[in-house]
């Protein structure tokens, strides 16, 4: 193809389609500019920056939602026709899945589903920050700029289709998070947390980039769809052994990249930053990091893992090694996270270790997927793994947000975050009682007890690990450890609930009074935990997740 043809193709075919798909992200970029302008013209005194951010995010959410409905109904939805028209959605653009921006990103319902989840979460976090008053009016535009900037990185991570974009997306979600952790800049612990986070994060990013350079150099491409076939081509018929230089360099590159992803997922042994960063950061930021950056990183991990698919024996072995490595990391994270959570006295730190353990459960699904793909080639079973993971992440969003929101609201009343300060919380006013019950629901769901939504998420992941066990026995070991860990985890969650409901309040403190608005917000984000476990929404989400996951495997 000649250069003018190529330019014509990019300008007239690729670019309009890409802009159409990328429009919600562009709206978010516009919101960031608007936030900065509001501050520049001193308008933030009568136009709070939080509302600008919330409005921009809502617009972006509607955009992604329109894309999702368009893909689901092929643009035939009568009542949404106006919305499709407003966002300029066409059958060649959003209606067709496939790579865009000359193959750097990819568009399918998997990416769109994750983007909906992330934007919904961003809206909820912004509402939370408006209610808790962190950041204050003067710092608002800085905070929301960082928050939205990090989210754009996560949105890009959902559609990564190129090794370079993998690095750019991870950096885009990391760099603003470093600053957000240190946002309370006068506090000693906050500055320490941010410093530790940035030092670990920068180091790991460098290591990951070295892995990217090795992998791209050995396979001669940066594009995800070509990685697997190039590897098969280079290996030919030779078996996968550690004396083969191509195999060794590829494995090394993949391992170094996985180090970077594991850092974002706070998987053991790359979890050191997580408890410190969560304790030093405000609870709002900790909640954002614990859910959003995990969801983005999981989408990215699945895309990267699926880049290595093929029928050649060497690729199969690579898949198996990939899956088993993730399985080992899953065991370590679950066990370590749950054991370390026992001795914690600070609730945010306890939740940080619980986050590590949950990342372990979730990565089990990816491990199961890779092991299944390496052996049986059963794409339906692999899609079931991904759909289980999607369900779990969707539920986890609400469980963890509820937990961190309660921490933030209680901190606003008592100025403390240690577990002892929760003693006798349930003896407070009516709203406080309600919030305590919401905390109970969130924690019981985090343990994974039926009939709450957390149970069904965990069940889906465990059953996919069980199926993968028939391909390689090691997944049964992982599954057994996961079951044991679920029982372990019961105790430290119960310790917090015991403080809230059973222990008497300290004598000198007055009962905690929580404003009614706050109670309404907490109830609003707790309801999905109940709804996704006990109503028909559960079936809806499950069906959608399976549909989205099957598209990933072109079933």
């Amino acid at each position, binding site marked *: 193809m000649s250069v003018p043809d190529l330019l014509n193709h990019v300008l007239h075919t690729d670019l309009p389609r890409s802009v159409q798909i990328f429009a919600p992200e562009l709206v978010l970029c516009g919101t960031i500019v608007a936030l900065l302008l509001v501050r520049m013209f001193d308008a933030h005194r009568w136009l709070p920056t939080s509302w600008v951010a919330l409005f921009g995010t809502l617009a972006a959410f509607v955009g992604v939602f329109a894309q999702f409905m368009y893909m689901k109904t092929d643009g035939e939805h009568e009542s949404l026709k106006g919305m499709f028209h407003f966002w300029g959605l066409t059958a060649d653009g959003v209606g067709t899945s496939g790579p865009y921006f000359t193959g750097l990103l990819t568009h399918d319902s998997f990416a769109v589903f994750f983007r909906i989840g992330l934007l919904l979460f961003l809206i909820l976090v912004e509402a939370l920050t408006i209610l808790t008053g962190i950041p204050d009016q003067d710092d608002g535009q800085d905070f929301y700029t960082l928050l939205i900037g990090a989210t754009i990185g996560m949105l890009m991570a959902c559609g990564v289709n190129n090794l*370079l974009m993998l690095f750019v997306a991870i950096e885009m979600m990391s760099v603003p998070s470093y*600053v957000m952790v240190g946002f309370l800049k006068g506090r000693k612990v906050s500055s320490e947390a941010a*410093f530790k986070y940035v030092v670990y994060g920068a180091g790991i990013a*460098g*290591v990951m*980039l*070295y892995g990217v350079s090795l992998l791209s150099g050995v396979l*001669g491409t*940066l594009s995800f769809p070509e990685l697997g076939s190039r590897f098969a081509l280079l290996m030919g018929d030779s078996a996968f052994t550690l004396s083969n230089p191509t195999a060794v360099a590829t494995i090394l590159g993949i391992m170094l990249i996985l180090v970077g992803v594991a850092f974002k997922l706070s998987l053991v042994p790359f979890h050191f930053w997580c408890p410190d960063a969560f304790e030093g950061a405000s609870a709002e930021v900790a909640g954002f990091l614990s859910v959003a950056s995990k969801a983005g990183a999981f989408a990215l991990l699945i895309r990267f893992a699926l880049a290595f698919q093929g029928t050649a024996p060497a690729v199969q072995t690579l898949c198996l090694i990939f899956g088993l490595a993730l399985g080992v990391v899953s065991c370590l994270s679950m066990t370590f996270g749950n054991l370390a959570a026992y001795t914690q006295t600070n609730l945010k730190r306890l939740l940080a270790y619980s986050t590590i353990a949950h990342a372990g459960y979730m990565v089990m699904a990816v491990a199961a997927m890779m092991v299944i793909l390496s052996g049986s080639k059963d794409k339906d079973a692999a899609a079931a793994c991904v759909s289980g993971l999607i369900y779990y992440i969707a539920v986890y969003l609400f469980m963890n947000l509820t937990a961190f929101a309660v921490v933030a609201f209680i901190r606003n009343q008592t100025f403390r975050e240690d577990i002892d300060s929760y003693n006798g919380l349930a003896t407070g006013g009516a709203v406080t009682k309600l919030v305590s019950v919401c905390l109970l629901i969130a924690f019981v769901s985090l343990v994974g007890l039926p009939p709450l939504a957390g149970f069904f998420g965990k069940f889906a992941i465990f059953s996919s690990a069980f199926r993968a066990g028939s391909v390689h026995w090691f997944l049964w070991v992982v599954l057994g450890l996961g079951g044991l860990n679920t029982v372990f985890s019961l105790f430290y969650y119960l310790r917090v609930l015991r403080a809230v409901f059973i222990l008497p309040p300290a004598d000198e403190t007055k009962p905690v009074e929580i404003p009614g608005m706050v109670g309404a917000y907490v109830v609003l984000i707790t309801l999905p935990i109940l709804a996704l476990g006990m109503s028909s929404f559960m079936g809806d989400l499950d069906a959608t997740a399976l549909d989205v996951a099957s598209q990933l495997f072109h079933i």
Partner: protein
Amino acid sequence: MESVGLSGYLIVGAVLFVCGVICMATKRNGIGILMGVELVLNGANLNFVAFSQHTHLGLDGQIASLFVIVLAAAEAAVALAIALNFYNNHLTIDVDRAADLKG
């Protein structure tokens, strides 16, 4: 002038990478660690450029290295700002003195 071939560049890149990792692992000064990070990033960059010259990677490698330079600058700016904030609160930049958070 005769080309030194791919392996020469890769060896220099690997040496930079190892020096950077050792620097990150042993330095107690926060700024020193960030310098180690720069070494690692430049080692990777050298790999990218060398691969783009000698393998099928082509121009992609050079574009990647340009992106990395920009991102490294952004990250260094943020890291130095956070290091300065840490210094303001602790009057030291020694990472071992960052010991308030543990457990």
